[in-house]
């Protein structure tokens, strides 16, 4: 949590990143930028999935539908925050010549998406819909 607070300060004070270490080869920074954008697209897809659950599954019960949509939206927001955090950390590690940061987030995200998918299958199988 303390590490996260430090990273948070880095987001808003670019000079602090620039002051450290040496500027890496610009192609490494561009690769880092593309990774950031890929995570942003993942976040957008999850947010879009939240909208889609609410709009295209009208037969689901209100609680199930809204709960599922909120779960997807929350994961999407977390994904966007994590994207910028990971980008800053990678950029700093490259400047310092350290190893790139490792993260549990991909595993957590995969498990979360898997859980939502299994929940959808169960909902359909058990027929928790308003339609008789």
């Amino acid at each position, binding site marked *: 949590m303390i590490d996260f607070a430090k990273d948070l300060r880095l987001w808003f004070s*670019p000079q602090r990143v620039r002051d450290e270490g040496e*500027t890496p080869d610009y192609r490494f920074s*561009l690769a*880092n*930028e593309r990774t950031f954008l890929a995570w*942003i697209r993942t976040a*957008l897809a999850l947010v*879009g999935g939240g909208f889609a659950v*609410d709009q295209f599954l009208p037969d689901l019960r209100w609680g199930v539908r809204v709960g599922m949509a909120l779960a997807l939206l929350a994961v999407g927001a977390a994904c966007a925050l994590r994207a910028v955090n990971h980008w800053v950390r990678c950029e700093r590690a490259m400047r310092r010549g350290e190893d790139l940061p490792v993260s549990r987030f991909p595993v957590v995200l995969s498990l979360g998406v898997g859980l939502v998918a299994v929940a959808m299958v169960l909902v359909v199988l058990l027929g928790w819909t308003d339609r008789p």
Partner: protein
Amino acid sequence: MTGAAAGGAPPAGAGAGAGPGRDPGLQPERTRLAWRRTTLACAVTAVLAVRQAVRGPGTAPEVAGCAFIVLLWLAFLGVAHRRIRALAAPRPPVLGERAALGATACVLALAVFAVAVLL
């Protein structure tokens, strides 16, 4: 933004056939397309958001929600456009923190809007 261009290391391992103004790995090109893809993804999500906002005959809050989403998308487009122009340089500068935070803020705003409309 200028620091990277001034003190940047020469591209290591640049192929012999590479001219001075071209990266043999087309990294700026790929990054530019990545911004385009992301703008497209943002557009799709924005369309879903507008669809969510407008369900009735078009009351004032619905119109305001629509306008908000369109402005969000335009903001994202602006960030992407500025970055794409910066990428046109032979050795592009590092992505600015403001652009990164701006793109993230657009996604977060979409998520918050979605929660507000859902509940």
